């Protein structure tokens, strides 16, 4: 049970859920949450590899921490963009944001 594969499967699962969420949700906040899931999947992956394959250097943990920071920053910027969009279109539905259509 406490093997690398378990963690990898879980992280892949998390990542896939996030991916499907990003691709399928029309709500911008939903998409943002899904991106968080994907990031968490990736973090878990790093941690797992760090734990089972390369215990000595703490690179995996450092990267996981960096991802957390990144996710926080991303959320902040993402939410502010969403707010700006909402002000402009009174909606956070992605289908409304099609100005760049060719």
């Amino acid at each position: 049970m406490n093997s690398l594969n378990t963690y990898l499967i879980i992280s892949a699962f998390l990542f896939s859920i996030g991916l499907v969420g990003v691709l399928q949700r029309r709500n911008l906040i939903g998409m943002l949450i899904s991106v968080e899931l994907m990031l968490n999947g990736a973090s878990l992956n790093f941690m797992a590899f760090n734990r089972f394959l390369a215990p000595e250097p703490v690179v995996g943990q450092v990267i996981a921490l960096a991802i957390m920071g990144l996710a926080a920053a991303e959320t902040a910027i993402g939410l502010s963009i969403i707010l700006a969009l909402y002000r402009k279109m009174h909606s956070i539905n992605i289908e409304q944001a099609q100005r760049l259509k060719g």
Partner: protein
Amino acid sequence: MDAIFKDPVLLATVIGTSLPFLSMAVILCLTRHNPMLSSRISVTAIVVAAICALFNLAKVASASHAFRFDTAWMSSGNIHLTFGYYLDPLSALMLTIVAVVACLVQIYSLGYMSGDPGYSRYYAFMSLFAWAMMNMVIASTLIQLFIFWELVGLASYMLIGFYYEKFSASQAGKKAFVMTRVGDVGFFLGIIILTLGFGNLGIPDLNSAPGTGTLTTGFITMAAMLIFCGVVGKSAQFPLITWLPDAMEGPTPVSALLHSATMVAAGVYVFSRIFPFFAASPDAMLVALAIGTVTMLLASTMAMTTYDLKQVWAYSTVSQLGMMVMSLAAGGYFAGVFHLTTHAGFKALLFLCSGIFIHEFHTNDMRVIGKQGGRRQIIPMICITVGALALSGVPPFSGFFSKEAILAALNAQASPIWLFAGLFGAFLTAYYSFRLIFYLLFPKGGIEEKHAVHEMDSHGHKEEHHGGLFWAMAVPVMILACVTVVLGFTEHSLQGYIMAGGGAVKHASTQAAAGGEAHGGVVGHQLLVILGISAGLLGIILAWFEFGRKGASRNGFLSYFPPVWKLFDARWYMDAFFRWFLDTAIYSGLTNIFTRNDRRIIDGGIDGICFFTEAGGRIFSFMQSGMLQYNLLIMVLVAGLAMLFCLV
């Protein structure tokens, strides 16, 4: 620089041949708005030039050698060109003819052109004309000759199109330039070939080249034929005849100069200039002979139908030039040069006389001038008759002697065709000249008195008003008439002078005539003189019978053959052919195709590329739905595929 002052001949040449240029420059730059001053400057320059030319003629005649001066002009690789003067008997004689005729014509123009708005411009271009021609005559190399040859063409373009507001005049100028250009390109190519194959364009070197045997006959023939193209263009030989009759659109004194001593004379002059070179190629000589003959006959027939005073003389110029070419091509070097000399005199005379009539009656139509009392203009009437007699080859006028010399040269040819053609040409010449004279003297139905009195009144009034101007026109005419009477008797001294230095020339002309001398000519010498005179007289008699005598029909025998009349009148449809060729082959042919090619294919192709680029962009922009998630989906799919690709 010092050399110029040490040698009087060189000094005279430099002064004589550069003054007209200076006068042109001064007139164009400074005195454009002062016509009187312009004309004085120009006339002074040309008088000085004429004096210098006479001085040179005397010097050359007394010296036993030719004068040659050269300085480097440019060099490029192994091509070295010099600028220089080459004064031998021929060029000194021609220089004198040019300077004297130009001088007389310019003095004449003081009267003829007075009051014209383009007076200064006229004198500027006349100076340019004289300058270019004089420099062409004494050029020491063929390339220098060609340069001034082109400038002669340029000056005549300017002068023929002098009345540029008239479409026909500017058209005639353009036609003259382009048609002579056709020949000049051949000349140019000939010079290039000589540069490449012989390397030395000095005229004396060229003339002695065939004797040294360094050149093959084929090469000489090719070069000679190409240079002859230039002669054909400039001297209005077949098939480039038609620009010359049109060239009378210019003021009459210009025609006088153009038809006698400059422009058209240039072609024949070049032929005689490198005569030994031509003579080394029998094939080229034969072609020249044939072209000269055809030209002479065609032009004579054209002259028989026109009523335009100047046009008759224009056609006669063409036919006389044809005769000179025939003579030279038949080996009659002296005869050709002599005819060039006498022709310069009497043709200038004829044109200047016609100019007085035209100035007086404001028309070119010989019938109208006759009706309005042309014969009452005593001085020009006598002078024009003298000129016509000379042209017809009646003794003792100058034309008789030179024509006899030409017939003698033709007589020496093996085939009798050339002689008979020459005689027939002489007959036609006399016929059309006196057709004109009788139209002037004995107009159909007499002079219209009422009209004439009116004209005389205004004329009398004019004479009081412009007395000096009338004499400015009359005096040159009288001088030329005297020259025409006297010049023929100088034949022997002139022959001695011309043939003196030219060993190569003598050799070449005997060589070219060798075919006939063996059998002693087609007819005997006595008979030839009789034939020559009688051909001329016969023409005059026929003209008298049809146009002169009382109760004559004044129609001419040609009017009984309307198609022939029409053929002659339309210049054997040569103009129509050129027109057709230009319109069909150039304008609506090549030009049109190429323009379309530019617009449709090249530009169309480029614009097409641009269009497809833009259209491609538009097509791809449809894929840009604006849905963020589609982009993401594609990204993921591509990334997945790439991963799969890496794994497999």
